[in-house]
């Protein structure tokens, strides 16, 4: 079960554990505006291949 976290914990994980921040909204919304440093993996295209962009040794934070 994924853990829900708040902004302060997001910042801590990014700072201390090199967490990867992933926007799962559609590409258009990502291109309009996204959190600095995040990557885009739209939910509709999320599969083993696209998730291959992520390092499974580091925390992954989705929003």
């Amino acid at each position, binding site marked *: 079960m*994924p853990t829900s976290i708040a902004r302060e914990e997001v910042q801590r994980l990014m700072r201390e554990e090199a967490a990867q921040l992933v926007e799962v909204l559609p590409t258009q919304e990502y291109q309009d505006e996204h959190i600095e440093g995040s990557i885009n993996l739209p939910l509709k295209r*999320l*599969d083993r291949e696209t998730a291959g962009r992520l390092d499974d040794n580091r925390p992954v934070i989705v929003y």
Partner: protein
Amino acid sequence: MSPRAAARLESLGFTKVFDYVEGKADWFAAGLPREGRLASVPRTGDIARRDDVTCRLTDRISDVVNRVREVGKETCIVTTAGNVVLGRVRIDRLEGDTQALAEDVMESGPTTTRADITLESILERLSARDVDTILVGTSDGRLVGTLYRSDVESSLNEGKLEAGQPAEDEVCCCCEP
């Protein structure tokens, strides 16, 4: 959407998955860095003035009045120790009892807007309600500052000037065609 994405990543074998449920609305509302095509469009949080006088529920109103007048303001925002907005005290509407506490005389739950609203959008709301200021807060209720309608209008006009368009007060509305 993010809970489903988090569950999907776990099903793909990722073991350290976290869900930032409040997402970018919360991030932007806190004034944190953003990127993208619209990232440079100014928002309410960018131009809100951050010089509000704040007080606690149990502050004596005579002290609050002194603090507010010292800095030439008219209101005090009542907040928790964590800066969550609870109410507002308008000094010019107080009647008599200087021994009262802020809690006794405050207006509860003043209207706030989020810090990531575009200036065009907030100007429409302010104009429709004919108000000159509105509090700006984060998605978890914390005070960012006060947004002045005049600042919104100035900022939008500056944007138009930079874009080579006539500012609002320079548009001739009564010229012969």
